[in-house]
């Protein structure tokens, strides 16, 4: 095993959240850029609060830990759920930077459930301190329609989804060239690289997104024109198949991919059968609504669900039985592997953006 760049380094703690234990992370460059832009601005007397927006499990906790470390002793770590309990106001502090994790913990979807968030927004707007906060993307989209979040956090970074190549780079950076062996159950032969391929492009027609086939010419593959025309085939590299499947199932979410990778890795063997495609989800409206609440928080307590949707034990049981959530009697969390399927389903129903 060798040390690698990016966040190969991520580790799972007991709660299932992704944490980092190495100095080199995927976010290292982002961290430097943020420190340069946001903190330098603060030193120059300008205050540009920053929101980092990502889906659950993305691994932002690890990133905030590093930010807090880099900004020590100027920064103070705050937690959205704790702030909610304190009415939305951070404790008095002489620290000039507030780093808030889980801003989605500052509200409840019920009448009177936005008071703490409103107080927090007022505080952020009027405070001389700089705030860097993370927020669940589904909560952010919802709250933006209700509260002036975008105005008090003028800088917003939406964390991107990663493709198979990115994930391969991240996960293999810790290992030698042929250190791992990939066991794929079924390999479908594919055509060798053709310079002309049929790609798919998303085209917007009157507000609808339609995927249309578009021929793509790849200059670098021109040398393969002859074998391509002879319909020569070769088995796809196991590694590539594995990471394509990993990217598809995780939806490009690096935190979910990390969890799935750990399940698949039996050093030095990487088993692809642990990567199970999530079947398409078909839930009724009540199940879907509760699922949207859980998705927009990532993880929440049972009493919060009760506050929002009343008695819902049978619905929670139904979601748990379908493998969409985990429930330990007190806390309800999304199942990482169900994240993409749940988000796709709720997007179809327009319950999330």
């Amino acid at each position, binding site marked *: 095993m060798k040390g690698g760049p990016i966040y190969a380094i991520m580790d799972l703690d007991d709660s299932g959240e992704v944490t980092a234990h190495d100095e080199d992370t995927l976010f290292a460059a982002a961290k430097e850029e943020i420190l340069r832009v946001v903190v330098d601005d603060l030193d120059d007397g300008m205050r540009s609060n920053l929101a980092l927006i990502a889906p659950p499990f993305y691994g932002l906790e690890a990133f905030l830990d590093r930010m807090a470390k880099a900004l020590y002793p100027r920064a103070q770590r705050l937690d959205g759920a704790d702030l909610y309990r304190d009415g939305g106001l951070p404790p008095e502090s002489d620290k000039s930077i507030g780093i808030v994790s889980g801003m989605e913990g500052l509200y409840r*979807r*019920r*009448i*009177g*459930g*936005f008071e703490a968030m409103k107080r927090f927004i007022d505080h952020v707007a009027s405070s001389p301190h700089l705030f860097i906060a993370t927020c669940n993307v589904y909560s952010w989209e*919802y709250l933006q*329609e*209700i509260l002036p979040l975008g105005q008090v956090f003028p800088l917003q970074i939406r964390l991107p989804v990663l493709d198979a190549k990115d994930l391969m780079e991240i996960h293999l950076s810790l290992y030698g060239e042929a250190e791992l062996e990939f066991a794929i159950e079924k390999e479908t032969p594919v055509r060798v690289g053709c310079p002309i391929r049929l790609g798919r492009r998303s085209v917007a027609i009157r507000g609808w997104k339609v995927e249309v086939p578009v021929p793509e010419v790849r200059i670098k593959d021109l040398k393969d024109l002859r074998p391509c025309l002879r319909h020569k085939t070769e088995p796809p590299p196991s590694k590539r198949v594995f990471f394509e499947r990993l990217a598809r199932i995780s939806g490009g979410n690096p935190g979910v991919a990390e969890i799935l990778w750990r399940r698949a890795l039996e050093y030095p063997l990487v088993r692809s059968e642990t990567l199970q495609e999530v079947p398409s989800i*078909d839930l009724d*409206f009540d199940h879907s*609504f509760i699922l949207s609440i859980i998705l927009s928080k990532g993880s929440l307590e049972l009493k919060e669900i009760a506050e*929002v*949707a009343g008695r819902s034990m049978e619905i929670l049981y139904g979601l748990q039985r379908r493998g969409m959530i985990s429930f330990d009697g007190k806390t309800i969390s999304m199942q990482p592997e169900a994240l993409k399927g749940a988000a796709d389903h709720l997007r*179809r*129903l*327009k*319950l999330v*953006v």
Partner: protein
Amino acid sequence: MADSLATPLSVLDTALILRSAMILASAYILSRAATALLSRISERAYGYRITIKMIIPLLKFSIYGIAIYLILHSVLVLSSAQALAVSGLAGAAVGFGLKDLVAEVVGGIIIVLDKPYQVGDKVRIGEVYGEVRDIGLRSTRLITPDDSLASVSNQLVLREVLNANAGSQEMMVVIDLYIDPRSDADLARAILFEALVTSRYIRLSPRHPAKVLVKDFPFYRRLRAKGYVYDLRHEFDLETDVTARAWLAFKEVGIEAPKGWAAMIEA
């Protein structure tokens, strides 16, 4: 005279009658099957429900149009002069006896081509309000809020249609609550806004904002909440959910319903 009338008509034998009946029966079965299939697909297609349902009347018109063409083609064998004579006769017949029927069918064709509303829309046609369940050749069938099936003549489409959602699955719902004019309007407005945006039936996006307006009247204050329901079938669910939760919250903070003019004068 008898010869000249017999020429444009094929011999009306049993086979021809049977053939015509079979064409009509096939068109009926095909149209029912296509309607059932598309309705089923639309229910599973979530966001595309109304788009798929839009195809249904178009398909039915096409099927029946082809069936009528096939029958007429078998029955009538016309030269240009004869076609002119027959159309003149048909025109006279329509003018005298079938004008309502023709107006209804023309209305149906206009609905399909002009799309003032589509299957799945919430509309008011004349005095009837409801969800469009089916657009037929002669009439449009609506499901009213009390679950009755109403048939409205397609003639009315030319002058008396109000469409609440215009082909979209989302629809604006307006909820009026009336409170005592001495109540705290800001607090009431904030509560009603939160009741609206926290409802499970609300659709919130930059194109679908939520809003609460306040207007004073002599003996009461009207709060008007405007928001989009994510699926128009939940129009009344949204209304009920918001109203019930808002009144519970009003009660907790002492916001009351108007007491009537007599009580106001007394106060």
